[in-house]
């Protein structure tokens, strides 16, 4: 504790060190969140496209505008 208080006086601040960040990167790399994981239908891809729409349109065609929402009176 004495050493921490001295380090604080010298300007140290709490935060993530490079070592922490490397550890988090290693953890993230092992989690099935991105990378090579296949994107499910209807899920947004990294570039923001809707995969449901992307898979429905011909390859190379520009994405169409989203259909207007349907309002149903109850």
């Amino acid at each position: 504790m004495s050493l921490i208080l001295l380090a604080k006086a010298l300007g140290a601040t709490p935060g993530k060190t490079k070592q922490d960040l490397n550890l988090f990167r290693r953890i993230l790399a092992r989690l099935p969140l991105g990378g090579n994981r296949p994107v499910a239908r209807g899920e947004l891809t990294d570039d923001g496209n809707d995969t449901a729409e992307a898979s429905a349109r011909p390859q190379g065609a520009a994405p169409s505008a989203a259909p207007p929402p349907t309002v149903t009176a109850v």
Partner: protein
Amino acid sequence: MLRAECPGDLQPQIFDQGRALTPWLRIEDFQIVSLQIIAEAATSPVLQSPRSCRSPPPSLLTQALLFHMPLYRGKSIATCVPGELRLQRFAFSTSVVVRVSPANPGAEELANELADSFANITVSTAEEADDATHMLLYLNQETWSDERLAEQVKKARADKLKIVMAHENDPDRGGCEFSKFFETTPQELIAGGLYNGDLARACYPGRHHEVHACAVRLPFAPWSLRAHALCA
């Protein structure tokens, strides 16, 4: 001194049973460490003789289970308090050059301890002008015994170099009451306000000195327990 203040009939129970004495200190951050030491000492006998406690709390049972694993056998597991400084991983975002004076006994050792514990700290013992960002002034019984130190501190103050003071309280390292420095420090420095600015940081031995939250060096720090399990 503590023994002398204790009533005679209690002295054998307190001082002669091999109990570790835990100091209770004025500064809150140190008090948290003292509380942890007390909590760990309080749980240890239960763990060593489970029959003495009919229904230990589940957390103690978990610890007791850990102690039967080869990795932890014969060790104790340190407690930690959420938010305590030792769990916050302090670091320097920019390089810090700490100047220590060879005329200040103990200063270089302390600065080297800091450099070993934190990245981005360089220790400089140069007496001439250098690229120092701070000066570390280590205060113990021997401080100010060398006249050169007063001149160097005066020059550092004149150069607007930030002076960080460490007040040693460990008797084995020449620790003493802070009031002693008002007798030993050159009057010119006292009158110049050396002790009026930033407070000196107290240095205590043992668990109160460490950077890490663990009394026993575990293969991974408690904060990274979950992360370690994921990476294993």
